């Protein structure tokens, strides 16, 4: 009898442990993004002084040149930065993705390595080498666009990778589209114009600046309005919902059934 119960207990423990580990993992990934991305503060584009560009060059040579080349021309380890623009540098460095820790399927979000002035100087230097997308102006980042148009554009252009609720999702071979619930308006805008890593570019001809503002408005709405349908469970659809239904609710039903059939003491 005791041997049987022990076996039963063992069987019960394993899927639960798996569920808890999975859930903790999902939670860690979700909150990790928001923690890091929230640290980015939007700023507007300014003219850069020669000193700032010189500081940028210095920072570039000591932090970036080993992979991207002394003149940002790229090496076998990293792409050329000619034409990527200030927006790209600002996106990569201010989210902590750059400088990269190690090569892998995708560069991870990490604690930011530079101060705002240093990031601005780096961007100014790379921008001074050749033209590219600029850091967006504060005026286009306000969530004052058309919410419905933004939602429609998001579902058409973004939702297949980033999930209709902006919760992110898996791509091929270890790559993934990150969760957008902690991303600042500036990061979102810069990602669209520069197409970081494997994300495609959505240039101003494809999605106009006004439409980009609509998308930011929609995401800002999602970020500030909680789900009205109850607990979101990470907005990951059948994965977390199924986990809860199979382990949680089914377990409850089994427990009730056992209680119904058991004799009273």
């Amino acid at each position, binding site marked *: 009898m005791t041997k049987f119960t022990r076996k039963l207990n063992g069987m019960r423990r394993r899927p639960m442990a798996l569920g808890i580990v999975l859930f903790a993992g999902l939670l860690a990934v979700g909150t990790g993004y928001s923690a890091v991305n929230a640290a980015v503060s939007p700023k507007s584009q300014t003219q850069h002084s020669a000193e700032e560009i010189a500081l940028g060059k210095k920072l570039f040579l000591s932090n970036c040149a080993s992979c991207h080349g002394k003149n940002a021309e790229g090496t076998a380890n990293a792409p050329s930065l000619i034409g990527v623009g200030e927006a790209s540098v600002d996106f990569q460095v201010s989210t902590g993705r750059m400088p990269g820790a190690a090569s892998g399927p995708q560069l991870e979000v990490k604690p930011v390595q530079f101060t705002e002035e240093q990031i601005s100087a780096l961007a100014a230097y790379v921008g001074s080498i050749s033209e590219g997308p600029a850091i967006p102006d504060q005026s286009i980042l306000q969530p004052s666009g058309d919410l419905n148009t933004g939602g429609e554009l998001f579902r058409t252009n973004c939702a297949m990778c980033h999930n209709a609720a902006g919760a992110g999702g898996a791509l091929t071979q270890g790559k993934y589209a990150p969760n957008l619930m902690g991303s600042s308006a500036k990061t979102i805008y810069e990602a669209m114009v520069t197409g970081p890593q494997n994300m495609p570019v959505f240039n101003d001809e*494809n999605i106009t600046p006004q439409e980009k503002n609509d998308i930011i408005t929609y995401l800002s709405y999602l970020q500030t309005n909680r789900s009205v349908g109850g607990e979101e469970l990470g907005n990951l659809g059948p994965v977390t919902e199924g986990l809860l239904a199979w382990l949680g609710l089914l377990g409850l039903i089994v427990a009730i059934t056992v209680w119904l059939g058991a004799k009273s003491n």
Partner: protein
Amino acid sequence: MSEDSKDLAKVSDTRYSEHEYELGLRVTHEDAVVDPGLEPHRVRMTDKSVKHENTAVRQVTALFVLSILGSAFALYAYFAFPIELGNMASVRSNTLFLGLGITLGLLGIGIGAVHWAKTLMPDNEVTEDRHLTRGSDEKRAAAVEIISLASQESGFSRRKLIRRTLYGALAFFPLPGLFLFGDLGPNVSEKLRHTTWKKGTKLARDPSQRAIKAADVTIGSVFHVIPEDLSPDDPEYLEKKSKAAVLLVRVDPSELIETEERKGWSYQGIVAYSKICTHVGCPVALYEQHTHHLLCPCHQSTFDLVDGCKVIFGPATRALPQLPITVDKDGYLVAQSDFLEPVGPSFWDRSVK
């Protein structure tokens, strides 16, 4: 009776032999597990001590009181958390609190009743034998008599002509149904072979329907495309859109691997492919800029965009159909024709031309 049946009668146990079975039909097992009978009756604590009995009474009463409180709370919640027009969050609190109250109301009654039955009601084990399935001989004889009398009086066995025409009528009755089945729907196969793309249809952005110039499509860009002439007022708008949806991407022309036949289908590295997965028809739109992989979110079919959108992973078995494109005199991207093969998943007569 043969010798075998006598043997069987010997091993059969007393539980069955009291009924009149034909022993030849019964399967008996000599090594059958012996019926352990009922467990010895266990006396409950509530039967042994008044203290425990009183506790159980209090518990059941408390559960029923909890139920009353739950129902009362549900009534309160109905008024305290009304659904306000335009405030979606109010729907959430309304359902949550109303539901909690009603749940308590029902669960209190249910759990209370079960607990009452288990702890306080008599728990002596009682055995009730099943009655025989077989009727008594008298009843069986009476039934046979009724049937033969009915057959005689109705003339069912005597009047052959009536009987046979009735059989015929019953056999013919379902035939019209067979033909009705054929009309359950039109043959949609022809519809599945064509989309609204035709020679000269401009490629437009989804959902704004602004036409796309070739110069707008920079390397690394992805455009979600629908035909420009698709009208949202068309009653079949969604049907047409869901078949004609196209993904437009520009890659470095040197990276494109094109067959002889398809050399003229792209424009300076701009290629257009159907967005409808050839597996079960999900929109394939997860595009990776550097690997040029197109991933289907439903079952992870992966297509290589620079190599004719051939399947490189997953359950899809056919490449995504390519839309031949070119530019018109104003620089707008236009279709050269419709897709040259049906888009989307297989259907029953897809290969029949």
